[in-house]
């Protein structure tokens, strides 16, 4: 593991309770620059809660998060995005009735230059549509004829593509993806994986949550194993097999000390 | 013809009277109404429709007598004769003429009748008021305050219900002018003071409701109910002793007088004259009771039934 560098994001002792359920129970987390970190764990282990805490979608009850060494406390996903953290949520977070372009620029709209934009706050539709189209073609993700069609008219795979493209296009610090391929077919999943590798090439670190072991072992640089609300271990996919990972994750085997310390 | 609502029997009868008269003398009549008591905008819109329709004259029972004035002015400026029915406008000369009951007088009549009937007991009467609605439209206030005046209660502000300090006023509640409301309001007041012996009601449906509530607790014999309107069901109720006395008004008369006036105006340009000494043409109110009290003119229910409406 190449841990010479400082982690770009660290979290320590995160706790999040929902009523009587403790979804995060003293969870830790580290992300290093330029890596793909996979997060695996059983259903309900707290993976989504973990990344929601990091991306500002929920506020943890306890614990500390540091971005580039500085403590941060996002109050909303907006703030996390402004800090350069983009997230593809498990439920996509697209507005069905808005167009593809509107969705991609939601919360960071481009305004017309000059008086119209400054004072009348008029949106620059053509500019947004052009940039949205550029992004989508650049990422080679889709052949969508009409960038202003409503998201609800897209197929599941296409929607997933829009969400991933949005995150990849705007993330400047890191991109988080929560089960981006769960509902996708073989071909569509492959595209998303390629996109993840693309984003990595551009130097951005990625957090990938997935239940698909072959995919995880194919792309991940490190694997964070989550169990019962906390980080159980971090392993290097080149040193451990899928069987090992699954055994750790499900409690069939205890992870070695080295991995625990990681 | 623009009435306050077209659900209250009083206005329905007025409409019927007007239509009958209109047919008789060959006048084309259209009726409008507010959606509910207090719907001033509805009446404003109705006046405007009349202007657009090229009407010669408008008969209106204003729901908000002050607020309607600008619209009335617009109509008069457009050359339409505007006659207020039932209630005067504020100011009264905002309309070309008024054919109205004096609602204050109507209240006063039943108030003094009640006082006279009670005799000595009037001094420590327990009076409950079944008023109309929370927004206190002008009929509501005039009848209520008129009753107090007749009964000899200090009114404080005569434009406001409920600011009096007289200890005999034990309860004010809202009846919505219908049976259900009168019933509930009476029950509430009885809880507040079980010794109530005089009940003022805004109209006869409320009185009927109040009677039901009294009957339920066996007090219907001990309580004097007075009311306003003089509709046929109401007069029958007086005859049967449900209501002690009621002030009868004459919507049919108002309406037919109004129609005739408009016809006259349309034919000859002559505007109607008010009753001598008043700033409106009084269509009269008569106290109806089978137990006349000394010094107060009244007719009995037989005569009342002959003149009743609805």
């Amino acid at each position: 593991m190449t841990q010479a560098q400082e982690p770009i994001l660290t979290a320590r002792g995160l706790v999040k309770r929902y009523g009587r359920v403790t979804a995060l129970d003293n969870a830790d987390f580290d992300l290093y620059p330029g890596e793909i970190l996979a997060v695996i764990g059983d259903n309900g282990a707290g993976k989504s809660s973990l990344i929601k805490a990091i991306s500002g979608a929920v506020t943890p009850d306890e614990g500390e998060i540091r971005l580039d060494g500085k403590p941060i406390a996002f109050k909303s996903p907006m703030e996390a995005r402004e800090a350069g953290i983009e997230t593809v949520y498990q439920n996509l977070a697209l507005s069905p009735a808005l167009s593809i372009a509107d969705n991609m620029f939601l919360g960071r709209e481009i305004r017309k230059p000059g008086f119209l934009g400054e004072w009348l706050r008029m949106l620059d539709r053509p500019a947004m549509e052009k940039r949205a189209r550029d992004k989508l073609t650049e990422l080679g993700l889709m052949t969508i004829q009409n960038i202003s069609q409503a998201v609800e008219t897209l197929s599941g795979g296409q929607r997933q593509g829009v969400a991933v493209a949005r995150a990849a296009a705007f993330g400047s610090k890191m991109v988080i993806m929560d089960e981006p391929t769960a509902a996708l077919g073989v071909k569509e999943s492959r595209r998303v994986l390629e996109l993840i590798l693309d984003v990595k090439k551009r130097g951005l670190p990625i957090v990938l949550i997935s239940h698909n072991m072959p995919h995880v072992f194919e792309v991940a640089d490190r694997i964070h194993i989550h169990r019962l609300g906390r980080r159980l271990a971090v392993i290097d996919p080149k040193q451990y097999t899928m069987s090992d990972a699954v055994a750790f994750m499900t409690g069939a085997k205890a992870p070695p000390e080295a991995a625990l310390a990681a | 013809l623009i009435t306050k609502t077209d659900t209250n029997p009083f206005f329905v009868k007025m409409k019927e009277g007007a239509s009958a008269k209109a047919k008789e003398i060959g006048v084309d009549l259209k009726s409008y109404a507010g959606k509910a008591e207090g719907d001033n905008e509805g009446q404003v819109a109705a006046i405007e429709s009349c202007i657009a329709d090229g009407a010669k004259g408008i008969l209106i029972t204003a729901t908000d007598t002050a607020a309607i004035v600008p619209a009335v002015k617009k109509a008069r400026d457009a050359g339409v004769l505007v006659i207020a029915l039932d209630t005067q406008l504020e100011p009264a000369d905002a309309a070309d003429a008024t054919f109205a009951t004096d609602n204050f007088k109507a209240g006063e009549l039943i108030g003094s009748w009640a006082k006279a009937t009670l005799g000595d007991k009037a001094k420590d009467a327990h009076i409950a008021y079944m008023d109309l609605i929370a927004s206190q439209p002008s009929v509501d206030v005039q009848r209520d305050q008129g009753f107090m005046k007749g009964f000899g209660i200090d009114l404080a502000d005569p434009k406001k219900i409920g600011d009096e300090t007289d200890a005999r006023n034990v309860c004010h509640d809202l009846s919505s002018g219908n049976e259900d409301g009168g019933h509930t309001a009476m029950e509430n007041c009885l809880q507040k003071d079980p010794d109530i012996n005089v009940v003022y009601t805004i109209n006869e449906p409320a009185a009927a409701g109040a009677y039901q509530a009294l009957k339920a607790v066996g007090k219907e014999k001990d309580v004097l109910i007075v009311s306003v309107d003089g509709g046929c069901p109401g007069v029958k109720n007086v005859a049967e002793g449900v209501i002690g006395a009621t002030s009868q008004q004459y919507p049919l008369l108002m309406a037919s007088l109004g129609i005739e006036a408009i016809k006259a105006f349309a034919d000859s340009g002559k505007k109607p004259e008010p009753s001598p000494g008043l700033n409106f043409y009084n269509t009269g109110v008569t106290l109806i009771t089978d137990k006349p009290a000394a010094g107060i003119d009244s007719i009995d229910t037989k005569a009342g039934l002959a003149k009743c409406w609805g």
Partner: protein
Amino acid sequence: MSVETTKASGPQEFEKTLAASDTSVASFDTHSRTPLESIQHRLHKSPAMVPLIILLLSVILFAIVVGGRFFSPFTLTLILQQVAITGMVGIAQTLVVLTAGIDLSVGAIMVLSSVVMGQFAMHYGVPAPVAVAVGLLVGAVCGFINGILIARVKLPPFIVTLGTWSIYAAINFIYSGNETIRSQDLETNAPLLQFFGNSFKIGGAVFTYGVLLMLIMAAIAWYVLNHTAWGRHVYAVGDDPEAAELSGVRVDRMLLAVYTLTGIICAIAGWALIGRIGSVSPQAGQFENINSITAVVIGGTSLFGGRGSILGTIFGALIVGVFALGLRLWGTDPQWTQLSVGALIIVAVGIDQWIRKISA
């Protein structure tokens, strides 16, 4: 064909290790509950508890503030009489709201039915039982029309009943010619219509048959909702109509049945209304839609459907009744009553929400 390792086979390599995996269900250390939390949890379990507690508190409040005049069997049963109509309509409204609907036309249906009963009995000379039956039929037809528009044409309930509210109310006024049928006339010609106005006493307490009817209807509705398949289906439809349809509930039939039943219950309430006010008045019941929705809402039933109870609605109606009478006895103006009912709605739902959130 090329020979590959990926041809039909057993589990993938990494899945074999699962045999040894932890078989316990993921369980977290449920941090110990404070007394407050366990109260919340208990309240959460039985949804009618919150309105019941608010009801008791408000009775105690007014008993202290107003004294014996309020806290007497007579007064307390009087409140029952005053809320009986709203309670019945509230039962119907609860059914509708449980299916994630709303019915703004309930008051209009109720009055129209009562007017039809009165007109048939008095003017067409039909026997009173037949008149009542015709009135109930009218209620059923009104509800059925709502149901068709909602279940078959698939229009939103709010819009459908906003429209039919206007329509039924207009028909009521046009048909009745705004004529009130007097109590005395009914008494002589069709006393059956006033049946629910009769009462009996137990000590100081007075119960009208109307109150009994409401209690019986509430009991039946409670039984049906909780102990029959039909009742469970009402909840399922409101919870998630698509899921209900796919798991074997005929959603459109259910909706049609619920709205039709609502119409019938409103017609019964119309009959009881004649008993309460003695006469037949086309002007009654104008606020019954808002009143019933208020009772449902204060009673803790969710406007999003699928959660709530009949008992809650009855308690909700009683809470409003207690406040209205209590404030009156305390001597406040009617306008203050209106204000406090408004505040009550918000506070009651606020408490309910708070309990749900914390004790999830």
